[in-house]
């Protein structure tokens, strides 16, 4: 189920602006890979190229290859819709659908894609909510609106919604930056459990968080304002935080800049 991502020579543009340049890396299956780096260095852009959400922004386009096991996401004839079914995403701000109940939110991926059986739906919802550590808190109010939950619960609802469609990869764009420490802890624990089943990529501004949750860490940087972001290095998290091979990484991690 979990798949390996192999990126080679990826450059992404917004219109004529080059946002990231020539990025190559491998993301191992059943592991957590964290992206760190200063604001504007293209972490989020790069993350969004991994499920072609980048193209949703007008003018967004990409050069290079992203291999998911042995399929190129940007190959000709590849439908971005089916890419996004395989590579799920959780956003910075919790965004449950406001017109839907908790149940419907989790079931949204299946229901909106049209292919589901009613009996199946209940199982999937329960399994996903349990998978997101939310079941016990909401099992008595599945028909209440999802927007009535607390911020941390909403974010776990969004994770449940994302894993309900059984993706191979789960992308998380700063999933804890809008949450308090307790909810953050809950999500971090959850990430630890989810990596048994999914390939997880997480963007974070919180270096402690990267150190806590990830197996591998990638450091991105940009040469200056308006310059494209670049991958500086990617390595085992332990090495990045103890003995990085590039000076800029060490400077960033020890707080000497950025």
């Amino acid at each position, binding site marked *: 189920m979990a798949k390996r991502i192999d990126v080679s020579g990826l450059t992404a543009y917004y219109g004529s602006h080059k946002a990231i340049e020539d990025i190559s890396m491998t993301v191992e299956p059943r592991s957590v890979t964290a992206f760190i780096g200063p604001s504007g260095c293209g972490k989020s852009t790069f993350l969004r190229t991994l499920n072609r959400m980048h193209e949703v922004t007008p003018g967004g386009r990409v050069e290079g290859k992203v291999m998911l096991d042995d399929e190129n996401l940007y190959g000709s004839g590849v439908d971005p819709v089916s890419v996004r079914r395989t590579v799920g995403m959780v956003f910075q701000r919790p965004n449950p659908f406001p017109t839907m109940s908790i149940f419907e939110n989790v079931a949204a991926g299946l229901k909106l894609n049209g292919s589901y059986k009613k009996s199946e739906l209940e199982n999937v919802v329960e399994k996903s909510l349990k998978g997101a550590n939310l079941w016990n808190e909401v099992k008595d109010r599945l028909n209440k609106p999802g927007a*009535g939950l607390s911020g941390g619960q909403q974010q776990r609802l969004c994770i449940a919604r994302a894993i309900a469609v059984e993706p191979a990869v789960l992308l998380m764009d700063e999933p804890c930056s809008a949450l308090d420490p307790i909810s953050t802890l809950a999500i971090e624990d959850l990430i630890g459990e989810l990596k048994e089943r999914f390939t997880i990529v997480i963007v974070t501004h919180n270096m402690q968080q990267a150190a806590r949750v990830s197996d591998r860490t990638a450091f991105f940087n940009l040469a200056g304002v308006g310059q494209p972001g670049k991958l500086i290095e990617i390595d085992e998290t332990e090495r990045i935080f103890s003995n990085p091979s590039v000076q800029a990484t060490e400077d960033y991690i020890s707080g000497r800049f950025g």
Partner: protein
Amino acid sequence: MSSNAVVDKGGSRHGSSLQQARLPRWAPYALVVVSLALGAGIGTALGMDSPFQWGLFAALVFIVASYVLGAVVEGGRQARDRLATSLVWVCFLLAVVPLLSLIWETVDRGRTVLDGYFLGHSMEGVQTILPGGGAYHAIIGTLEQVGLAALIAVPIGLLTAIYLVEYGRGKLAKAVTFFVDVMTGIPSIVAGLFILSFWIIILGFSYSGFAGAMALAILMMPIVVRSTEEMLKLVPDELREASLALGVPKWRTILKVVLPTAIGGITTGVMLAVARVAGESAPIVLLVFGATGINNNPFEGAQSSLPYYIYEQWQLGNEASFNRAWAAALVLIAFVMILNLVARGIARWKAPKSGR
């Protein structure tokens, strides 16, 4: 709060105290009473006998007095605050008084002949100078014409708005927006003339409710587009992205996520557009021709409609027809009001839920 109050007009600029003199809470109410009395006094003194003229004087007195009183007791900033507050209240009343007076007048005059008989009978064979007869044929006409107009205009308007918000980029979208703006300003008689020349003179069809409905649809469309567009723009992009990231195609995202989120506002907009065209008479005069009998078929033959009926009855110029005109006006207002209430109900019912 007392001794330094009157002296220190500019607030507490020099003193260290944060306290300053305030008018008592009942002061504005007392001022209303006083200015009403004064307004009536001035009015009578000048020999005017309309309460409305007295009210205008009272409003003027109220605005000036609250500013002066504020300036003397509380200082300049508070006085300006009181001036703004009283201006807002007076303008509010000026806006509401004509509305209430209109509703009062219509209800008062309309109820004389408004009963089950009036709602259930047409003018077929009724001597126009005598009491009796009703507006059934006109109500049917209005319902059918407005319904058909909505049937034409709402889908087109909705799809145009979806195109503009979700897909439209570049020159085509700009052109569409421009023409929608132009359409908003088309006078109803021009829309009527357009359908008259196109549908009736060139294509050779005859007068019918449907011809009128097409003209009404032209008037409705830009309102539907505009209001739907605004509502769709209010739907946060995060919801679209959340849906797309689940692997939902764009069209399904629009259909299942964007539209349901905005449906309350869209319904309100559509109902307002319906209410707006329900009162149109010019295209009806040109295209539906008016009839005294019941014609249930909007696709053939002349029909009537409420605005047309009102105009027609008023033209007859006798007591019985005046009564019928007022009653029809009351029916029309009630129709529009019910539509608005329904729209509000739907908007509240369908609004995104945030509670527990």
